[in-house]
């Protein structure tokens, strides 16, 4: 580990130990309590960010998870005499259960997932509050915890609550750090930028979102449990107050919601500011100031403090990625032995959108090592066919086989892992990930599930292959169209697919760039990848294709060598009109 990595770790270890020693020192209880409140917000804001900051599903219901934790601990400790520390895992578990249930319902939707999730979490807060005040849980009058024995972990009860709060903050931050550096984190960041693309690159988006919300809500629940002994008298009104929902959001956004450290920084700054501003009956002034601050932050600094500072810092530091001067050519993989199955086999595939029949009984088989050109007028179903093969759309009838195995009912990420990759006509890159990470993602989630180091090496290989190695640390917005198109290609190749679907890679490129692209596609095939490509540029179609398939209004009207199909009467009719057909 380099000094650069070790220094921050040592800093946090020393800081943690120093903070742990605070209750032992002779410090007025007021300051100890204040520090606990800071920890409380650090934990809540950080837990919020694990789902909402990383994956972009903004929760407006953190009060509900927190509140469930508060009431689980309060009820178990007061009514059932459960020792306080035992209530922590239960509080976390119940909150996580609620979170995953909401996630299970909303995350499956095709549209408006993000907005509906936000709205559901708002409503959920009021529903949970209503249930608690309508039932004997608190019966509308609150629960006293004054009699609950606080475990004497660290001298006085104040000290114990302090240490528990510190532990929660440490757990929350460590979780956020670990997630942001893991496969899960990379997947969540990709979901934030473009969820459909992430799924097509092999990220199990539904499962990842559930994992993120379970962690996020679980931590919030445990934090709530600790809070219940701090306040020692819990009421529905205060537990589910709108500020409990609002503060973690503000703190995370202010600090930087895509960075594990952002929410903690935001929590420290904002809690301190609030404490000096107002409390008690004038609390609404503080709320108004925070709300105003949130509006300004979103409009003027949507990335947050930490991200803004880091970006400024990196601009002055040399990039960490060392660009290799020469890429060793990877040994060519042999074209697979003659397989009994076609690589891709679509049988009678049909797909309708409302009244429009986008695909009508399309049957098409692609042999191993073949390059198949897919052509047809606009709206003929070419892109729909690609979306059907990659699992983005479910088919209405027929079947799709890949290497003899049926894939049409599989989720898109599983299909990607089987070895099908695609590029997008208009590049759909992950805008907040570097060029390198954009390519490393499919390497980590594609056919081979490579670990972090191997995926980075793989990504560098394909960046060099497509001539983008020097741009590895750039963000996609900094690339021109030609570079973005090649980045799309590198991203598809890094998954090491056996079948590559290319959607109009040539469109918008100039002559020299097209020649380069033609060479590249041929070379990819030489490496053992079967290719289906959609293209309007006839020069490319004729130069590359072994066979050409022609779609018109969702029906496959011709398949054959380029020469055969170009002479086909129906094809000429479709492209040039009746007069030329005879």
């Amino acid at each position, binding site marked *: 580990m380099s000094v650069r990595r070790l220094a921050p770790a040592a800093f946090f270890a020393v800081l943690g130990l120093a903070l742990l020693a605070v209750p032992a020192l002779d410090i007025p209880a007021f300051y100890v309590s204040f520090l606990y409140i800071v920890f409380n917000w650090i934990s809540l804001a950080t837990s919020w960010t694990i789902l909402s900051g990383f994956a*972009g599903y*903004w929760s*407006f219901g953190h009060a509900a998870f927190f509140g469930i934790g508060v009431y689980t601990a309060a009820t178990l400790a007061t009514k059932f005499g459960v020792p306080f520390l035992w209530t922590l895992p239960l509080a976390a578990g119940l909150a996580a259960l609620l979170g995953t249930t909401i996630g299970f*319902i*909303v995350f*499956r*939707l*095709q*549209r*408006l997932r*993000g*907005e*509906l999730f*936000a*709205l*559901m979490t*708002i*409503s*959920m807060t*009021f*529903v949970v509050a*209503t*249930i608690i*005040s*309508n039932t004997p849980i608190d019966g509308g009058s609150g629960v006293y915890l004054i009699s609950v024995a606080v475990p004497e972990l660290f001298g006085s009860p104040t000290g114990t609550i302090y240490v528990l709060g510190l532990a929660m903050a440490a757990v929350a931050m460590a979780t956020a750090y670990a997630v942001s550096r893991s496969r899960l984190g990379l997947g969540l960041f990709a979901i934030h930028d473009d969820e459909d693309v992430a799924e097509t690159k092999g990220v199990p988006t539904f499962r990842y979102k559930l994992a993120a919300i379970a962690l996020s809500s679980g931590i919030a629940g445990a934090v709530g449990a600790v809070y219940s002994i701090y306040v020692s008298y819990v009421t529905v009104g205060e537990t589910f107050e*709108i500020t409990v929902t*609002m503060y973690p*959001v503000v703190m995370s*956004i202010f600090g930087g919601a895509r960075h594990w450290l952002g929410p903690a920084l935001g929590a420290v700054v904002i809690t301190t500011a609030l404490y000096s501003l107002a409390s008690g009956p004038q609390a*609404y*002034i503080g*709320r*108004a100031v*925070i*709300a*105003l601050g*949130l*509006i300004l932050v*979103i*409009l003027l600094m*949507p990335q947050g403090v930490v991200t803004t500072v880091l970006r400024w810092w990196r601009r002055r530091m040399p990039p960490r990625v060392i660009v290799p001067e020469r890429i060793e050519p990877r040994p060519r993989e042999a074209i697979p032995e003659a397989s009994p199955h076609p690589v891709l086999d679509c049988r009678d595939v049909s797909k309708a959108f409302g009244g429009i029949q986008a695909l009508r009984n399309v049957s098409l088989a692609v042999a191993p090592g073949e390059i198949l050109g897919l052509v047809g007028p606009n709206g003929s179903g070419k892109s729909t066919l690609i979306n059907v093969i990659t699992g983005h759309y479910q088919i209405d009838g027929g079947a799709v086989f890949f290497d003899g195995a049926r894939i049409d009912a599989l989720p898109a990420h599983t299909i990607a892992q089987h070895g099908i990759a695609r590029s997008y006509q208009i590049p759909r890159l992950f805008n907040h990930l570097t060029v390198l990470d954009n390519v490393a993602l499919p390497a980590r989630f594609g056919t081979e599930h490579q670990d972090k180091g191997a995926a980075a090496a793989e990504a560098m290989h394909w960046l060099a292959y497509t001539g983008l190695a020097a741009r590895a640390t750039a963000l996609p917005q900094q690339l021109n169209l030609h570079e973005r198109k090649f980045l799309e290609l590198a991203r598809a190749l890094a998954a090491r697919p056996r079948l590559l679907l290319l959607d109009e890679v040539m469109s918008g490129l100039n002559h020299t760039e097209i020649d380069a692209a033609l060479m590249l596609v041929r070379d990819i095939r030489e490496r053992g990848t079967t290719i289906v490509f959609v293209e309007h540029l006839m020069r490319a179609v004729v130069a590359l294709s072994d066979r050409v398939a022609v779609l018109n209004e969702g029906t496959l009207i011709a398949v054959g060598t380029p020469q055969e199909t170009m002479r086909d009467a129906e094809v000429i009719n479709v492209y040039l009109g009746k007069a030329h057909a005879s």
Partner: protein
Amino acid sequence: MPHFTLLAQSLLTGILAGALYGLLALGLSLSWGLLRLVNLGHFAMALLGAYLTWWFGTVYGIPPWWTGLFIVGAFFVYGMGLHWVFMRFRVAEMASMLITFSIAVLLESLLQALWTADFRRYETAWSSASIVVGPLFVPTLNLAAALVAAVLALATWAWLRFTYVGKALRAGAEDAPIAAAFGINHRQLSYLLSGLCAAYAGVAGVFIALIATLAPSEIWTWVGVVFAVVIIGRLGNPLGALVGGVLIGACEAMTMAVVNPAWAPLVSFSVLIALLLFRPKWV
């Protein structure tokens, strides 16, 4: 089981209350569906309108229709201003939620600062007036609110369906660049729509003042219900908003009559969950 007349009475009350949900949902559904902006501040504006109606009415004796006219005009300007901010800073759908959420918190604080957190009630001559139909009582004010809601929903629907402006707005929501290529000035139209949505919040506010008891925290009790109505009625669909509102209102009233009034807040949430579970393609 309560008596039949009692059930019919509460169903009627629920339907009338539901029409008010529909009125509140109208502006929200339009701005979400046609402008891609989710306005969490809509309720706060409605409540601000309600407070203004109550305040002008009780302190200065100004009748609600004059206050209503003023509110509609002022809110229209506010709606356009809000839209200017969104356009100027290129605010995306999710960020629009955060900003309008903050606006709601700001307005809640403002209401509390101006008129305290106490409950307020606007007593007028019509407060307890009602029309008797057979065994049922139809409260006049609720009936008026429902009629206004129905007229506005129908008029908005017809406007979007049959006029050039309406069609242009729908085309712009579908695909702004293509609509622009066909010569639709979506920018200008979206200002109009944003102003209109805020004005609808104002109209709803006047009726909230006449019908309900006011408190700043009421902002949050409406959120869940009305957003459920928007989803059930489908985005950008004025008639859907009205139908969804009536449906939720009726369900809530039945729950209050048959089960327990305290559980009414759970109704809209449960209906929404059921919809998302069994008809996920609805949204």
